[in-house]
């Protein structure tokens, strides 16, 4: 059964093998594993299963259906493209972490039971945290630790919910959940990874601080896997509609404000996830297809946005728009690449966003939710404003930077990866059939290219741009950060430190001082063999040690203890003899 190899295991095997190959070849060998995974995926047919008896349970290591297959494809392809983007990298730690991360994501995608899912879910958290940590800065260290804690919290919710669910139903299968406390706990676990507001702050905290190449993997994998798990477990849960709407608005407002390019993109992930979560909440076949199509195309052009932003950071060493500007003369190609991705995410016609995002809005319309439709249209405006206009304008134009910037050369492999993603974005935009045929539930009942939809698309983008160019001065990013829900654990960390660590430290400090002090006092009054010897021999020798003290503290104490012990022994012996 050569066909039934879990594709995730190939990547995890790669993570084990890659340190063994010569250092120079590592980044090339890296590409072999996602390519192999793509090959395996091409042979998988919906309906196939691979079980594995473990204790009293039958684990489902591989559950192939339309939903898992389409996500599997895009995760493997995204890993391949990100691998090309990282070809110049000589950092074994990151390569191992990236393969382990992508492998466990694929493992979780094809997991048919809750144990397998949680197993890979936790590996993902650790492997991806390494990609933040590898940046090596103090901020990255703090971010990685917070990232890990938040994800372990989410993982614990998931584990608790899963155990409860298994105790209640006796089944470990990962399918649609029915409700009850167990389901809510599991939903909480998924919501952490899906960056549902207010559990989203890890994303804007960690992604801007991860390594340039690491963020590409992270933007493609963690949140989109959460979309997949939500679509499988919680389709049609009404609360997700409202959670999604909140995310969509919340993310886009922050994206308009932020100064760091990758932070804008991170907040915008929250906003885009809002569309997907809301569509999953609607739960109709069309809505789920919209959510899946949007997730798939998002991996593509959000990855491309992060790649272009990463190229700027790699080349200039600066990520804040307040310090950037006028880069067009130095990095024109990156600008055009970015613009394609920015237009795609704003769902401009003939690009990948145009064939996916409107499906979710259309599904909301079809489900009779006009409020949601209006809100999503408004958020689309904000999408183009923040990601499509603000970032490129203030990075590549918008006057001169505060300090002159000399952009370093960008490795060719980065350009290759970016152009590859540009090609795919355009290809899917004009020819959506390959994606549509893979969606669960067949080809969606939606025609992206009508005169009406084109008119809508052009009107929205052009008039947003008109206003943007009229008020660019008002929108200029400030050299500030914005408070978010991570304030709760970042500022309370200081309080916890003060109330738990500081008093304990003070107590031990006091105890140490006290015991030294007492020892010294005992020693002063104690037995000093040197002085004793001198007094017996009646000789005065040269002063040794500290003036005024004839023997060291240690010597005095040990001699005192010895004498006491000796006297006690003699007393005991005498006592025994007398009796």
């Amino acid at each position, binding site marked *: 059964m050569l066909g039934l190899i879990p594709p995730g295991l190939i990547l995890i095997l790669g993570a084990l093998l890659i340190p063994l190959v010569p250092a120079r070849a590592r980044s090339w060998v890296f590409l072999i594993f996602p390519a192999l995974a793509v090959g395996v995926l091409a042979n998988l047919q919906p309906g196939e299963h691979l079980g594995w008896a473990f204790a009293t349970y039958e684990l489902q290591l591989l559950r192939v259906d339309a939903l898992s297959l389409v996500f599997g494809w895009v995760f493997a392809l995204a890993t391949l493209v990100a691998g090309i983007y990282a070809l*110049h*990298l*000589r*950092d*074994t*730690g990151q390569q191992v972490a990236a393969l382990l991360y992508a492998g466990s994501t694929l493992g979780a995608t094809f997991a048919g039971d809750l144990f397998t899912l949680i197993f890979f879910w936790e590996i993902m958290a650790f492997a991806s945290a*390494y990609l933040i*940590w*590898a940046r*090596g800065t*103090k*901020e*990255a*260290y*703090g971010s990685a630790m917070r990232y890990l804690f938040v994800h372990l919290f989410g993982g614990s919710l998931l584990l608790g919910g899963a155990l409860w669910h298994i105790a209640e139903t006796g089944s470990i299968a990962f399918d649609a959940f029915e409700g009850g406390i167990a389901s809510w706990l599991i939903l909480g676990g998924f919501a952490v990874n899906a960056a549902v507001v207010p559990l989203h702050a890890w994303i804007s905290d960690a992604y801007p601080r991860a*390594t*340039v190449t690491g963020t590409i993997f992270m933007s493609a994998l963690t949140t989109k896997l959460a979309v997949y798990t939500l679509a499988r477990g919680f389709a049609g849960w009404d609360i997700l509609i409202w959670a999604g709407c909140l995310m969509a608005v919340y993310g886009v*407002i922050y994206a*308009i*404000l932020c100064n760091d390019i990758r932070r804008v993109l991170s907040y915008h992930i929250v906003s885009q996830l809002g569309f997907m979560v809301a569509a999953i909440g609607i739960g109709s076949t069309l809505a789920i297809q919209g959510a899946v199509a949007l997730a798939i195309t998002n991996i593509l052009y959000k990855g491309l946005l992060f790649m272009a932003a990463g190229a700027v950071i*790699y080349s200039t*060493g600066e990520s804040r728009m307040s310090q950037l500007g006028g880069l067009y003369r130095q990095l024109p190609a990156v600008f055009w690449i970015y613009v394609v991705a920015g237009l795609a995410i704003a769902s401009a016609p003939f690009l990948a966003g145009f064939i996916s995002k409107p499906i979710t809005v259309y599904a909301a319309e079809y489900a009779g939710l*006009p409020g949601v*439709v*209006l809100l999503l*249209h*408004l958020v689309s*405006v*904000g999408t183009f*404003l923040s990601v499509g206009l603000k970032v490129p304008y203030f990075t590549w134009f918008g006057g001169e930077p505060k300090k002159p910037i000399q952009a*370093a050369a960008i*490795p060719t492999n980065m350009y290759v990866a970016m152009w590859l993603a540009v090609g795919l974005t355009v290809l899917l935009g004009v020819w959506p059939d390959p994606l549509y045929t893979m969606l669960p539930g067949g080809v969606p009942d939606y025609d992206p290219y009508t*005169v*009406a939809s*084109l*008119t*809508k*698309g*052009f*009107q*929205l*983008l*052009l*008039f*947003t741009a*008109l*206003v*943007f160019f009229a*008020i660019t001065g*008002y*929108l200029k990013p*400030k050299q*500030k*950060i*914005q*408070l978010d829900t991570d304030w709760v654990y970042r*500022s309370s960390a*200081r309080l916890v*430190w003060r109330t738990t660590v*500081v008093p304990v430290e003070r107590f031990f400090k006091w105890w140490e001082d006290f015991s030294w002090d007492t020892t010294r006092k005992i020693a002063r009054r104690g037995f000093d063999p040197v002085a004793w010897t001198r007094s017996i021999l009646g000789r005065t020798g040269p002063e040794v040690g500290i003036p005024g003290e004839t023997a060291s503290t240690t010597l005095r104490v040990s001699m005192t203890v010895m004498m006491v012990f000796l006297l006690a022994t003699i007393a005991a012996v005498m006592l025994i003899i007398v009796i």
Partner: protein
Amino acid sequence: MRLNFWQLLFGFALLGSVVLGLMQDKEWVYLWDFPLFFALTGLLGCLFLSWVAKGLVSPLLDRPEDFYDPSEKDPDWSGESPAVAPPASTPRGRTPAGREG
């Protein structure tokens, strides 16, 4: 006012999208069936969101960049500094200081 090529192109595209919208004869069911709905959404939505972000949220939530890093002011607080050295990576091929790949 002299317009350059890009501004002219942009202007014609604006006009074109409006004309295209007006040319479509569609029955009104929802608000968004109005021919210029998306032009107005772009126009007003962009103004509204900019105002919410810059006018309402920014004064409330903006903080200096070192807001979360008070380690220099507070000697008791060293919770965010690495207790161990950051992960060692192969020194070869490491890009110049301040940049990484």
